[in-house]
Structure formats: C-alpha cells, structure tokens
C-alpha cells in the first residue's frame, strides 16, 4: 500500500461528473460519477450487475462515448487528446477481462499474442521484444515452453496469467481488471490474487479492480467505491469501508457478502425489479425505494456527495458518501 504520494501529487486517474447512456439516453448506465485513483493505489469498484461498473471501465479506455463529464489521466482529458497522445496514453492503461477463454485470440500462440502490443506501440527491436516477452512470462509464473502454445492448451488459470502478461507488457501505469478473477475457481482465484498482490508490491502499479465480490475486494483494494444504478454512492478507504461502511446500500452489500440478511431490510424482492428505475429523475435518492433508513427528504431531494473526512482526519484518500443521513453532519460543520 502506497501512502507517501497521496498528499501532494494529483491523482493518476480522475473521473469528473461522468454520465453515459445507451439507446438514445433511454438507459442511463453511468450517472454523474466522480472518482479518484491515486498512483500506486488499488481502487475496488463494487456493485450489483448492471450498476455501471463495466461502463466506467469502457469509458476510461474511450471505447464508448460519454454524454458528459471528463476523464483525466495524469491531468489530461482523454476525450480531448490528439491521436498521438491518445496512443501514448493507451499504452499506459491496460485491461484484463473476465473470461480469458474468449479474450485471448485462439489462433495466436502466446508469443504472438504478447508481441503484438510491443509492435503496436513500437517498443524496442526484435531482440528487446523477445527478452521482454520472456521476462513477462516469468513475472506471471509461466515457463518458456508456453511461448509456442495456443490458449486452448492452457488451463483457465494459466490463460488468465497470459491475459495479465499481455496487459503488463507495455509497462502500464493503470491496470483495469474487470471481474478478472470472477470466473475462476477459488483455488485458481487465490493464485491470481497472489499474482496481483505481487504486482502491487513489486511494480507499484495502480489498479482499478472491478468486482461484485467483496471478499476479493477486501483482499487487494486500498479504496472501495460503491455503485448502484449508475450512481456512485460511496468511496471509502478499504479499512473504513470494511469496519463500517457509510451508505445504507453499502451496509446491505456487506451484510449479504457475509451471508447475512441485513437488519431492517424490506421484505419485498427488490432485486427482482424488472425495469430499472429511471435515474434521470434527479429529485430522489436512487436507493430510496429500498433503503431501510429512508427519511421523507430522500424522496424529495437527491442527496449531495458529502465529504466525511472531518470526522476522521487521519484517513487518507477520498472518503465520501451520497446520503441524506450525512446532511446533518455537513450543516453542523459550517
């Protein structure tokens, strides 16, 4: 965990008021989300399926076009970059997908797969590339015999190692892992988590780790961000989050992850909502329909994102929650 450069340096990745929708804005995937990721930290992004987690990852890579908002990488807006800067930036941001059996090309050997990013970004000559490929294989724990084999000749854990090697070979500053261990068996998952922990420690790489599994997030994240129906409801340091999350939704998520039904939880099957509530309606809290701590104001007014640092001055990193329960604190503060 890297805390030294948190204070002065600007965040490596800064997302400001990002909104993203599909089907002519009929379906809001991401709704005014602001997020920070400092260099060397790992941010765990959690939420149920459909919360907008993957849409954020895709927006960071400029694979989809947001409706509004900015994504700054090292202080530069990636949506306003010229092609040259964009290419350079893409080298610094790499992605690992959920299922390696479909994210690796079945017709390329491991060596071909690993060489392509080097050729694309014109990194080194042939000799240097060969060295780099051998080095990265060692880093992810595969032997050199893997070079001439095809993805189907590997187990799923080995395939995910290859996918991670492909992402790492360009020396990225930011690794986005979108449910990268979710489809793996627990024993393989443990091996891949060990590998990621080694990368954090030895390479100081920043990771945006998207997962619906809080136990996995606990294992590797420094900070936790919680999304619900496209909105960011909370961003907290992991220790604070896991010893007591701030938002009522986060509390229920944590309870479910611990195999308990949250206390005060409404009986109706809220998870079975067939249609998403419209998030375009800014006059309520998105979670007010199911919130056990609902107050009258929650249905009248969308809560603001409250910085809750002042109670915990020693806490580093973003610490904020979007909930009316924290209005009082704010008012007293001023």
């Amino acid at each position, binding site marked *: 965990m890297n805390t030294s450069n948190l204070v002065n340096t600007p965040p490596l990745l800064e997302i400001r008021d990002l909104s993203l929708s599909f089907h002519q804005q009929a379906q809001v995937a991401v709704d005014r989300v602001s997020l920070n990721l400092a260099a060397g930290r790992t941010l765990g992004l959690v939420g149920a399926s459909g919360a907008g987690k993957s849409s954020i990852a895709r927006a960071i890579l400029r694979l989809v076009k947001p409706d509004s908002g900015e994504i700054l990488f090292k202080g530069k807006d990636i949506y306003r970059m010229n092609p040259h800067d964009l290419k350079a930036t893409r080298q610094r941001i790499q992605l690992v997908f959920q299922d390696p059996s479909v994210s690796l090309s079945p017709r390329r050997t491991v060596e071909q797969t690993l060489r392509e990013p080097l050729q694309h970004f014109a990194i080194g000559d042939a000799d240097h590339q060969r060295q780099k490929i051998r080095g990265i294989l060692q880093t992810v724990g595969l032997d050199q015999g893997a070079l001439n084999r095809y993805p189907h000749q590997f187990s799923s854990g080995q395939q995910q190692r290859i996918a991670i090697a492909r992402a790492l070979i360009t020396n990225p500053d930011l690794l986005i892992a979108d449910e990268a261990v979710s489809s793996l068996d627990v024993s393989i998952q443990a091996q891949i988590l060990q590998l990621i922990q080694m990368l954090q420690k030895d390479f100081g790489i920043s990771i945006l780790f998207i997962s619906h599994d809080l136990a996995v997030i606990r294992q590797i994240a420094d900070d936790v961000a919680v999304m619900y129906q496209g909105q960011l409801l909370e961003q907290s340091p992991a220790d604070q989050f896991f*010893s007591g999350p701030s938002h009522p939704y986060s509390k229920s998520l944590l309870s479910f992850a611990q195999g308990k039904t949250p206390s005060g939880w409404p009986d109706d099957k809220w998870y079975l909502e067939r249609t998403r509530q419209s998030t375009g309606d800014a006059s309520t809290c998105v979670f007010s329909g199911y919130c056990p701590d609902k107050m009258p104001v929650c249905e009248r007014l969308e809560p603001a994102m409250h910085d809750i640092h002042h109670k915990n001055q020693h806490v580093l990193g973003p610490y904020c929650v979007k909930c009316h329960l924290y209005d009082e604190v704010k008012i007293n503060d001023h």
Partner: protein
Amino acid sequence: MTTPALKVTNLSVWFENGSSRLTVVDQISFSINAGDATGLVGESGCGKTMTAMAILGLLPESGVNVRSDGIEINGRDISTLNTGQRRAVLGRDIAMIFQQPATALDPVFTMGQQISAVYRRHTGGSKQQARKSMLQALESVGFSDADDIAASYPHELSGGMRQLAMIAMATVCKPAVIIADEPTTALDNSTRALILEQLKHLRKLHRTAILFISHDLAVVRQICRDVMVMYCGRLMEKTDCQSLFAHARHPYSAGLLSCIPQISDTQPPPIKSIPGQIPAPADLPLGCHFAPRCNRAEAQCRTSIPQLDCDNGTGAACFRPL
C-alpha cells in the same frame, strides 16, 4: 432405516481414447435423504457436472462410458432405464437446475408455456390444471406477480429472475430429487442470497433432496448439511459442513478452504493458494491423485490409492489425514 431419496453406488464415467482410458468420475458412492441437501464441491474439471449428467443419463451414448451398481430414486433403480422410460422420470422424479438459465431456457416460448409443458408431459393434466400448477410453482419461488412472469419470455427477465423461473420449472412436478449445478455462480451476492433462501424453502416445503454442485464452499455451507469434496473424479472427503469448516481432514479440502478470501475489519494477510495445478485426466498420477501437490504426501501416497473410509458415512480418502 429409511430409503434415501437418491442413492448412487460406484458410479464411474470414462472416455476411451485408443488403448488408454480417461477416467473422469471414479467409483463414487453417496446417498441423500429426503429433505436433505448435500454439496458436491471441487474445481472445474474435477467431474462434478459429469457426475450430475451421468446420474440423469444425459451423457451421449457413444464415446462416453458410464457404469454403476445402481442409481436409485426412492429405491427405484433408474440406471437401467431406456430412453423412453427415462423421459418419464426426468422432470417428474428428478430435475436439474443449470448454471446458465439464459441458455437452458427456450428463448421462443414464454416462461408459462415452458413450465406448463413440463407439468403436462408428466401428469397429462388439463390446460387449466397445468396453468394452476405453473402459477403455484412460480409463486412458491417468491414471485408475487406470477401471471406477469408467466407471460414473459426469458430475455425479458433479469438473471436472478430467470434462475428463479428455472427453479419453478424444476419443481413444478415436485420431484424427489433436484440436482442444482452451480445455480448461483453467475449471480451477484444479493441475488444469490435470495436464490439460496428459495432453495432452502422448497427443500422444506416438498421435502426435496438436493444435490448442490458448486466450486464455492462458502455457498455450499449456506445451504447444505453434508458436503463431498471431489478431486480428479474421486471423492476426497465426505462429511458434514460444520466438521469440514471446523476441521477439514483431507489436505486438499484444507487447501480449498484456505483459498477462500475472507472479509475482515483489518487488512487481511496475503491469501494462500494450493501449489501446482490439477493434472490432466490423461496423466493422472498413480496412487492418490492429490499427492504431487500435497505437502504431507509420503511414499505410500504415490503408489497406492487411499479409500474413502465411510463406516459412519463420513471420512477422508487419505493415508495421512489432518
């Protein structure tokens, strides 16, 4: 002594590849009583799904060999049935819940049509009766708007709803046994909790015996009383969940448990993993299949096969248990 709802004796599944034999399920035996749930856990490729498919008789007839000394449902052997006889059993006496409801359900029929079809196939009842039972099945899995769901096509439902609808389909004839193959693996935590609640509820309601297949021990613990740990086609340990979590006796079970990430207030210690990889079915080691990855293995483990000693129904197939 009561007759178990499901009793499997010495079930083996293997492929023949020229002169060599690839064994994927190796002589496994177990039984589940009515109203009980037993978990079958292990990593991908260990033979869990093969076991399920072999019990149901759904493996293709050519290429795959299935042998057993009996697969009994409430005392009746279904392993010797022909295809026609088997069709009468599947869905009525034993049903399956698959991992991916999106691919297991038929996209061109409504949920109501699909569930009613199962009912009518087995009972020959009228359309009205079928509709009534179908709606009851949907209500029993927790849908308050069963009419609405019945009129929906699978793609109109969310993943969790589809899985519930498939459970309704599996239970519409109130079978004695349900095999659930990774029914919650594709779902997020809150939906998973709901599905597990519904399965528990149905188990009590109809006294259904459930064989719950999963790679996730934490989930198995939430729903099953007993658990079997499978590795490379063999049962390594058979015990109740409480004992397994308190004191796993097989080193493989203990290794699996240590791989589960835990949620704690403080920064957890780095996660542990089992060294090495699962051997391919073509080059399984002699003796105990887990021996090459086991830090307790000695000479005997590499030459002879430890048997699952099950005097009282529990035990570990290990020469040097923990």
